[in-house]
């Protein structure tokens, strides 16, 4: 097949001692970047974009791919060990990763994350290699009503995040929805909840929300408990490799997460947040141990981490085939292309095959490097848990503050992150789950925009949501997800669960 010949030539370009070294450097920088709160892959790439002036395209792209994968994995490290995800894509990982670490199982948790990232990276890069044009066509056919329906489906699918108390979960969700409202209304330009501050016109960045609710909130909570309560020591039991039972439980989530991440990543709404939350929910639904979720279920790490990593190759699909950057990272990679005077788009594969295939080959190499370098390092990372708690929490506060200030250069944003952090502190104190707030502030604005856009296009005619087959199917699916779990036990008390899909 021609694809493989092209890919082979890409590898021929990318596989040299020099480039392998670049890949190793990239993955290492990326992991460090991922560990620091606030500095995500997009930011790291933006800072390193000037590299492109000195490097050839292949070298620069290999470093970039390495940094990207490394940082996605690095985000998992802090999520699991400290409950402080640096960005929204790692939030789902923290839900079960942190309880696992508290139970002394940090080793297997980290190993699952790195191996799952690798597996999903390979799956999704294969997807990019073989399916890019087909997936791009699917993405191209999505209209505003379909996006809206997809958001509704995502919303009802992530009830797993809500936790034990529905009221608490909903309060948290609506807090997130409110945060998402702040800023200029996208469709009319009206200011909402900006209180006349020009800094708020652009809204509150999701990274600020995540750092506030998690890093700052967690550190404040941790410090307060040191002061007022007896803290149980986190003991690390020393085991790093997955045992047999764990191995059996993680491989399916890796694969499912890989597909979810790839498919959602390639939608023009892009990003890694939605697929990670969906994957978490899916694993909880499918698991034989749903009661373990939230308390340290290894599937809850395997699925979302795989989805997180896979979303990157997904994001490359619209970028390479349509010239559409759907995430911040993709936008940076687009500018890297443009620096080399290359315009991604429908003609890219014909005009610059060398570069494209080298890039794809470099994604494979980045993934392999990630595995080789980071698996042995798991032993080093778990040492973070040995840092005395007062130092550790203070360190998180310092890095979180620095991260936010470097992000915005604005003191107001630092104040905002601390206000959100204090909210996060009280949410922890009174047992409110924080993940739904993150989800609300991501999904809310997207859903609102698509809903109003769809109605504007139809001139206020609501029937568009029921007359377009794709929209209707997605909405019916959402309805099924919402009502089936409560309805099924009553309607079908004795029948098997396999009939579930046919009842709506």
């Amino acid at each position, binding site marked *: 097949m021609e694809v493989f010949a092209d890919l082979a030539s890409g590898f021929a370009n990318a596989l040299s001692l020099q480039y392998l070294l670049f890949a190793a450097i990239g993955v290492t920088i990326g992991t460090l970047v991922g560990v620091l709160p606030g500095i995500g892959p997009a930011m790291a790439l933006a800072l390193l974009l000037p590299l492109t002036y000195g490097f050839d395209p292949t070298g620069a792209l290999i470093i970039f791919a390495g940094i990207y994968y490394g940082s996605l994995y690095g985000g998992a490290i802090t999520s699991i060990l400290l409950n402080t995800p640096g960005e929204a894509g790692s939030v789902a990982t923290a839900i079960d990763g942190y309880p696992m670490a508290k139970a002394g199982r940090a080793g297997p948790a980290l190993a699952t994350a790195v191996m799952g990232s690798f597996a999903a990276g390979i799956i999704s890069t294969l997807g990019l290699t073989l399916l890019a044009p087909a997936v791009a066509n699917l993405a191209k056919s999505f209209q505003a009503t379909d996006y809206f329906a997809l958001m509704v489906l995502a919303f009802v699918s992530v009830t797993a995040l809500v936790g034990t108390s529905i009221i608490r979960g909903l309060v948290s969700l609506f807090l997130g929805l409110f945060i998402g409202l702040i800023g200029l209304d996208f469709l009319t330009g009206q200011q909402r909840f900006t209180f006349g501050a020009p800094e708020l016109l652009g809204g509150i960045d999701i990274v600020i929300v995540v750092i506030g609710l998690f890093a700052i909130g967690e550190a404040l909570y941790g410090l307060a408990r040191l002061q007022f309560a007896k803290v149980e020591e986190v003991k690390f039991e020393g085991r790093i490799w997955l045992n047999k039972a764990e191995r059996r439980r993680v491989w399916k989530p890796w694969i499912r997460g890989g597909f979810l991440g790839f498919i959602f990543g390639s939608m023009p709404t892009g990003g890694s947040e939605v697929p990670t939350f969906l994957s978490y929910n899916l694993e909880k639904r499918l698991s034989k141990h749903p009661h373990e979720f939230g308390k340290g279920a290894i599937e809850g790490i395997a699925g979302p981490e795989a989805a997180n990593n896979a979303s990157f190759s997904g994001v490359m699909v619209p970028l390479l085939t349509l010239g559409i950057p759907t995430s911040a990272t993709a936008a940076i990679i687009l500018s890297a292309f443009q620096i080399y005077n290359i315009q991604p788009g429908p003609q890219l594969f014909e005009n610059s095959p060398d570069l494209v295939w080298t890039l794809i080959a470099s994604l494979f190499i980045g993934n392999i490097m990630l595995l080789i370098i980071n698996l042995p390092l798991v032993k080093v990372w778990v040492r973070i848990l040995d840092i005395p708690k007062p130092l550790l929490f203070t360190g998180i506060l310092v890095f979180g503050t620095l991260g936010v200030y470097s992000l*915005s250069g604005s003191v107001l944003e630092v104040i905002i992150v601390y206000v959100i952090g204090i909210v996060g502190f009280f949410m922890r104190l009174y047992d409110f789950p924080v993940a739904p707030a993150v989800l609300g502030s991501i999904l809310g604005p997207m859903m609102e925009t698509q809903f109003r856009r769809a109605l504007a296009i139809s001139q206020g005619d609501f029937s568009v949501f029921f007359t377009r087959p794709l929209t209707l199917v997605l909405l019916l699916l959402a309805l099924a997800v919402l009502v089936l779990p409560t309805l099924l036990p009553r309607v079908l008390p004795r029948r098997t669960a396999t009939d579930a899909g046919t009842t709506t």
Partner: protein
Amino acid sequence: MMISTRGSKKQRTYTALAAVAAGLLALTGCGGNGGGGGGGGGTAEEYPSASIEIMAPADPGGGYDQTARSIARALTEGGVIETGADVYNVPGGSGTIGLTQFVQNSGDPHQLMVIGKILVGAIQQTDSQVTLENTTPIARLTAEYDAIVVPADSEYQTLEQLMEAFKADPGSIAWGGGSVGGVDQILVAQLADAVGVEVADLNYIPYSGGGELTPAILSGDVEAAASGLAEFQDQIDAGEMRLLAVSSEKPIEGVDAPTIIDAGYDVSIANWRGLVAPPEISDEQREAVIGMIEEMAGTQQWQETLESNNWDDYLLTGDEFSEYIQSEDKTITQTLTNLGIIE
């Protein structure tokens, strides 16, 4: 490619990461407020006596940023100045946060700021206390033009067919374009005006940039779209979109489409960008800055930049530029008022 500074969540993330780069640049390049580059009081003969600091009031990667960096490069590599030139970014508030910060450099001719048509509208829209009246206009430099496109399978073959359908039933044509109050919406509003459609009846759907707009055109969500020609070029070449007209006054070389004027509607729009200096610099200093920028515009580096970015050479300096800004302010304010975006 043009990335607007306001918009969706995704856009905000661009802002965020851009800011980091800005932070780094500010560290190396000495940010806007603080230093002012020691030599602020230098006399005209020895201008520039310190490094030139250019502010891009937006993220790295967008139009303002590219313009600022290209100017800095042409100034130094083109041999216009010996003292060096640095660029720093102040994103937020659709550029008005940068503007507010910039005017604090009062009297320092080594400070420059990139502005453009979008900023004129943003000042109105965000109710900014500081306006371009508070700056010293130096030069208009570049222009980019909008393209009117339809999906390749659209029934509209010409702009006239599209405008006839629009005139007959304004609401039935959903127009896609960039953020609210931006160049694209102003263009569509002026088109509506030209065919006698009430601006209030306009069905304009804003998108946060080419990344969102392109799929909306390809999926048939919008009937037609207006945005920067560069955003659509690749899709047009690939036969996915049909280019009906461009918004320039004269036909663009190498582009196979009439101007809107040639297509029969007296509308043209240029997404221009230029430079301003802080308030309260002396006339000699102003002349020296203008002289430096005119020399910069003549360098080979600058001409190459114009060509590779498909920017039109749109040079206009000094008082004429000041008058141009005033007339732009008047028309933009009028259009935004008609659109109901400002009161």
